[in-house]
């Protein structure tokens, strides 16, 4: 009696369409969304420098990713390092082609091309270091920024992505849950940002300058919200019920966090602010990222409402108390929000969404322990790794522009340009 042959994976057009458009959406998150979100917050004389950093990250990290970044992160590892970093087997996309991707989630056979997975992940590799820009905005030297971003991507991003997402990865094997990058992207970038704010030091200007264009910031936040559907729901790697569920969880957590930040502003400073609601939305997006494919709407609401409280506290109270100059709150929002989301994933993951995964609330306290352990280990790696890296760069080439160049503004002093003319 013949045994049925195992079903053969094939490229599904619907899933591929979904992952390709999601990839475009994640590109959109870095440029123009993040560039606008951050760019609106800085002073007029520095907006182009921030946008430039976003653009050049997109260009440079993409090239590195196909050269060997992807291989290091997702490629097969070797020997003792297999759990920590991949090898060079897939360097320059050797063996990464149009065949069904070895990475997938729910469908065993209706897959996407391997290159689609690779380029989707590329956009994550780009946006992660770009988030750090918020910490050292308005004072970093462009050349130092470039060196830092490239080295950080190779030395810190690729290993952490490997540990969490590769089938070989040590965190993956421990059962860590990170649907779309709470640890890999947000904790990672956020604690690197803290290191960066500490190492580079405060901006020189005597007082905090107000954001030069909150319209840009609001547009940027809206575009991040839009693009994040690709980030989170695209991480289902298929256009199925799980994708729809991740889409929904993302949206609800974001809505809850936006409302909560608005309420806190209202309670504590008498009026709700647009910047607050936009910041809350981003905090919600950050926190739901690891949980998007594991929680239902109750979990999403709990994560959304709570993350704004936590991040608000860090941004408005802790930061001024310690006095580090995390210029655009990359640490306060991404670091703290990512950590919060990673932990709560271990609480609210429900078997209703993916039957294999459940958190504390559904009788599996161990998941929370794993989440805590993995988050803390990642924090240690990224924080100290970034600290050392930045210190070295500072010693070799200097991290900061001169005081005069900072005063003049980076647009003119680093890029020979001005964003706006003054007369017609």
């Amino acid at each position, binding site marked *: 009696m013949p045994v049925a042959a195992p079903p053969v994976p094939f490229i599904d057009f619907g899933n591929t369409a979904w992952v390709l458009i999601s990839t475009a959406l994640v590109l959109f998150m870095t440029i123009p969304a993040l560039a606008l979100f951050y760019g609106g917050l800085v002073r007029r004389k520095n907006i182009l420098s921030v946008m430039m950093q976003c653009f050049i990250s997109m260009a440079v990290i993409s090239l590195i990713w196909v050269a060997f970044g992807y291989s290091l992160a997702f490629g097969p590892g070797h020997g003792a390092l297999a759990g920590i970093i991949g090898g060079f087997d897939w360097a320059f996309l050797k063996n990464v082609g149009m065949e069904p991707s070895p990475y997938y989630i729910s469908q065993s056979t209706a897959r996407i091309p391997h290159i689609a997975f690779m380029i989707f992940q590329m956009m994550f590799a780009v946006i992660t270091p770009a988030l750090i820009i918020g910490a050292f905005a308005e004072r970093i030297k462009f050349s130092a920024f470039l060196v830092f971003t490239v080295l950080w991507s190779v030395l810190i991003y690729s290993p952490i992505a490997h540990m969490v997402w590769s089938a070989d990865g040590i965190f993956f094997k421990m059962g860590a849950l990170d649907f779309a990058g709470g640890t890999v992207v947000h904790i990672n970038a956020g604690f690197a940002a803290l290191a960066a704010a500490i190492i580079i030091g405060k901006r020189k200007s005597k007082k*905090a300058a107000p954001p030069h264009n909150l319209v840009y910031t609001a547009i940027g936040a809206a575009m991040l919200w839009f693009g994040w559907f690709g980030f989170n729901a695209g991480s289902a790697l298929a256009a199925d019920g799980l994708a729809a569920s991740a889409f929904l969880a993302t949206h609800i957590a974001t809505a809850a966090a936006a409302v909560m930040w608005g309420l806190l502003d209202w309670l504590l400073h008498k009026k709700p602010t647009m910047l607050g609601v936009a910041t809350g939305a981003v905090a919600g997006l950050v926190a739901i990222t690891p949980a998007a494919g594991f929680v239902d709407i109750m979990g999403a609401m709990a994560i959304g409402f709570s993350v704004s409280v936590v991040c608000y506290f860090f941004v408005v109270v802790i930061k*001024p108390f310690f006095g580090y100059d995390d210029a655009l709150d990359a640490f306060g929002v991404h670091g703290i929000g990512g950590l919060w989301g990673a932990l709560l994933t271990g609480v609210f993951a429900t078997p209703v969404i993916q039957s294999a995964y459940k958190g504390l609330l559904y009788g599996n306290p161990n998941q929370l322990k794993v989440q805590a352990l993995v988050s803390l280990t990642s924090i240690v790696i990224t924080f100290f790794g970034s600290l050392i890296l930045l210190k070295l760069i500072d010693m070799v080439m200097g991290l900061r522009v001169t005081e005069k160049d900072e005063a003049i503004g980076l647009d003119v002093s680093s890029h020979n340009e001005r964003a706006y003319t003054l007369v017609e």
Partner: protein
Amino acid sequence: MKMIIAIIQPHRLEEVKEALYEADVNLMTVSEVLGHGRQLGVTEIYRGVKESGNLLRKIRLEIAVNDNFLDPTIKAIVKGAKTGELGDGKIFVYDLKDCIRIRTEERGSVAIG
């Protein structure tokens, strides 16, 4: 001939212009400036940080008049701009040595209006 510079609240501009028209003063030059006066400026908060720069948005009017128009003009500005609260603004007056209408090359008093 006198030059009058008035710094007023932006939201009184319409009232001031109206009062000036009533006083038959129709010519002026307007710009947006930041004023630092006695008015306290804490009305802006960004991520919990109060904007303590207290440089507040103001409107600057520049009005050249013949001497007999000086007082009516000042009265009109005060009428339009005064609310009695801090920040209402100030009026400064200079002597004007000359005035030239570019179109006609007329000079002096006749060119002002």
